[in-house]
């Protein structure tokens, strides 16, 4: 009878898994349907769910609206207003490179999550159950009525969505848009309407999944967002294409995660597994999938907009003046000096990120992970092993190099969106599976991180960090002025052409990821040393998204943008009133900023096209000579 016991002890977990899996599956179907129809992958899908959960909470719990009305209102409001809005945004995003698309939807994620935190606070709140939690006995297991309802609602909607997609006229048009958008227009169906409906449905599934998951998860913005990010894993199971497989993927992930939860507590390693499973799937599918998935459709580029070269005096004078100013900072800012120390450390981080995403055109959404590796290794080396401070710093950077090389593996196979997803997944995996091991932060509270002996005063340490920041800038400048820089810029423009000249571009990609990881790790170590002790919180994977948004807002320039980004991110908020309000709205501001930057880029192409068209008209008018007149006459 042992097997019966085994089954009955597992059943409750299977039930839990099926319930949450059903919701993941529905959310993932909405995500995939939108992505396939509109061509824009919505990183903010999970954040929309979070927003919906809080909105529902506000309506139902605080305003006393009956739950069915609150539910309909929430979903209708988000989907009905969001759908047309997203079509307006998405239309422009289809024109920009995938990296910019990622920036825009990541910005949206940050903005939505930031607004939620600003209104409701960052602390998790309990989400009162709005469905009956009474249990009924099914064969072998007690099941809550709420569980049955949630599962059934999600499952029925998933089926309805599938039937709608396969049978209805609009659904047919959506599939047709996937096959060939131009042909849909030629066939007399309005692609704008089709895409608007797709956005509406996608946002609707996200909103609903947020409300359905809310009671079991509680009101916790990052956690809810991450949960719906599970949808990425389910979407990967369906190859980002097949809706039934996507739903099945959701169920599978839900059940597996619940199963691991059962066995997790006994095994230290397994504890992070439930929430990392989707990313294991995500990475697995993307790395093992046939080439088809990995390839991004080639998009014609409009002529690049050339940045105006700075005058010579500014090019050489600028950095010198900046260093001089930075050296004078301790005399100018008084007690706010630690802000500037952290600013200097962030310069290193943003220099590293800019090298990767700007100069070489790769995407990385796991920079917080690199920094975490640096910070924890540095503590082990300098505090634990007692290595000299500078040596420990250097070695901590080197420890991250193989990690960078590991992230370069997806970069070899993937590009654009899939690379962004893979690196984000890698960051989450690192957090879930490795952060808490003894190789990194362990489980015994914050790690001690020393400052260099004799230079541990705030002023002295500021100069230490500043020196490292300057060295990092010099290193990147030297590297990018060498052959590597030319190869990286060429790589950003056309890997194909670079390969055709005989360059093994995979080697180039590994190099740039290694250099970038090295610098990011050093930045992490510096930040840790600044605060004296360090734990996992500052290295949350969502931080990586924030970094990307900040860099996007900071403008152009290989060194200028990182410096501006560091000032914006680490220093400026404290100066703006220094109140909590500013800190609260900071991610919102960067999120909105990132969206605006992406939209301006999307519209810049439009502007260029309009200008080109104008020039063409003018030229045609001038050229229309006797020959054209004869043509008209001949008709």
């Amino acid at each position, binding site marked *: 009878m042992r097997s019966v016991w085994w089954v009955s002890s597992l059943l409750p977990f299977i039930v839990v898994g099926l319930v949450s899996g059903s919701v993941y599956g529905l959310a993932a179907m909405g995500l995939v349907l939108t992505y396939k129809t509109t061509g824009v992958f919505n990183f903010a899908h999970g954040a929309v769910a979070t927003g919906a959960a809080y909105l529902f909470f506000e309506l139902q719990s605080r305003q006393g609206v009956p739950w069915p009305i609150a539910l309909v209102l929430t979903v209708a409001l988000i989907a009905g207003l969001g759908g047309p809005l997203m079509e307006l945004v998405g239309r422009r995003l289809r024109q920009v490179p995938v990296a910019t698309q990622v920036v825009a939807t990541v910005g949206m994620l940050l903005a939505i999550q930031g607004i939620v935190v600003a209104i409701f606070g960052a602390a998790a709140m309990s989400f009162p159950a709005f469905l009956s939690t009474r249990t009924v006995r099914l064969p072998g297991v007690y099941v809550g009525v709420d569980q049955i309802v949630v599962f059934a609602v999600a499952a029925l909607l998933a089926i309805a969505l599938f039937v709608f997609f396969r049978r209805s006229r609009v659904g047919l048009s959506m599939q047709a848009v996937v096959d060939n958008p131009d042909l849909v227009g030629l066939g*007399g169906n309005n692609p704008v309407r089709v895409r608007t409906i797709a956005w509406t449905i996608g946002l609707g599934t996200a909103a609903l999944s947020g409300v359905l998951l809310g009671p079991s998860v509680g009101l916790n913005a990052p956690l809810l967002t991450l949960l719906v990010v599970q949808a990425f894993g389910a979407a990967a199971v369906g190859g980002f294409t097949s809706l039934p497989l996507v739903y099945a993927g959701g169920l599978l992930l839900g059940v597996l995660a619940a199963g691991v939860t059962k066995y997790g507590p006994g095994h230290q390693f397994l504890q992070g597994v439930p929430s990392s499973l989707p990313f294991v799937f995500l990475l697995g599918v993307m790395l093992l999938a046939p080439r088809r998935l990995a390839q991004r459709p080639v998009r014609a580029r409009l002529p690049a907009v050339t940045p105006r070269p700075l005058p010579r005096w500014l090019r050489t004078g600028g950095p010198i003046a900046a260093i001089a100013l930075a050296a004078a900072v301790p005399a100018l800012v008084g007690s706010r000096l630690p802000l500037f120390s952290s600013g200097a450390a962030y310069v290193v981080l943003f220099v590293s990120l800019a090298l990767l995403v700007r100069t070489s055109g790769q995407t990385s959404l796991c920079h917080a992970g690199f920094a975490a590796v640096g910070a924890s290794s540095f503590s082990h080396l300098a505090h634990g092993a007692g290595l000299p401070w500078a040596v420990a710093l250097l070695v901590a950077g080197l420890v991250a190099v193989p990690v960078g090389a590991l992230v370069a593996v997806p970069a070899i196979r993937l590009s654009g969106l899939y690379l962004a997803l893979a690196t984000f997944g890698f960051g989450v995996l690192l957090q879930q599976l490795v952060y808490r091991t003894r190789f990194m932060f362990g489980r015994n509270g914050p790690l001690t991180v020393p400052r260099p002996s004799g230079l541990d005063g705030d002023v002295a340490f500021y100069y230490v960090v500043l020196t490292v920041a300057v060295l990092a800038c010099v290193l990147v400048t030297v590297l990018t002025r060498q052959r590597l820089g030319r190869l990286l810029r060429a790589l950003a423009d056309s890997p194909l052409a670079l390969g055709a000249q005989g360059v093994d571009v995979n080697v180039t990609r590994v190099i740039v990821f290694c250099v970038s990881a090295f610098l990011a790790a050093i930045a992490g170590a510096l930040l840790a040393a600044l605060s004296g002790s360090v734990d996992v919180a500052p290295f949350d994977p969502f931080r990586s998204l924030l970094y990307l948004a900040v860099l996007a807002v900071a403008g152009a320039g290989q060194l200028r943008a990182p410096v501006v980004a560091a000032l914006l991110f680490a220093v400026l908020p404290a100066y703006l009133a220094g109140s909590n309000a500013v800190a609260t709205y900071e991610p919102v501001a960067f999120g909105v900023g990132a969206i605006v930057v992406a939209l301006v880029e999307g519209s810049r192409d439009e502007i260029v096209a309009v200008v080109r068209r104008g020039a063409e008209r003018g030229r045609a008018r001038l050229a229309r000579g006797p020959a054209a007149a004869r043509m008209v006459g001949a008709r």
Partner: protein
Amino acid sequence: MKPGLELRGVSAGYAGTTVLRDVSLTVPAGSVVALLGPNGAGKTTLLNVASGVLAADAGTVWLADADVTAEASYRRAARGLCHVPEGRGIFPSLTVRQNIALHVAPRDEQVAISLAVDAFPVLGRRLGQLAGTLSGGEQQMLALTAARVRRPEVVLLDEVSTGLAPQVIDEIFAFLASLAAAGASLLVVEQYVARALALADYVYILRNGGVAFVGEPAELTDESVFAAYLGTTTTVPVGA
């Protein structure tokens, strides 16, 4: 003559490349115009501009008496323009029936299917099959059904015979002839020059993005068509 479709002084191209330069072309209502020229001359670009898949950089596009230059392709389609694009103009992941249904309002689906099957009986046995699994010839027939079931006034056909067996090509050209006989205006881009000329009332030859010849098929000897293709002579007369 009343124009079915007219392009006036159109220039167009893709991302920095200008393909068409100041091209004017008229398809008189109810007539067949063959659009010939070597590969890369800009024929497909011209059809794309006519149907709204590609915006013109300069010039205007007219359907009947309406300036449709600023209209999206689905609006032009609603005005009675049908573009059967290069390659296979079908949705491979939909069934044959769904492909046909997408061309008409839902209430007209049954009529559309019977019209399509009348035109190409072989499709009648394939209605439930995914379009992507049809043979090349059947796919092309399916793409062409749009030109019948939507009852368009102007049909643009882009190399609809490419890569098909001779019997299939015969069947397709018979279909085109029936469209013309029913009063539709056709603009036909075709690799098989002789067949296109046999069907056409007027001929345009494009070369390097400009019109190299306008006239009637009878004015073209085989030799001069070939010359225009190969560019061995530049003395082809301009104007009819």
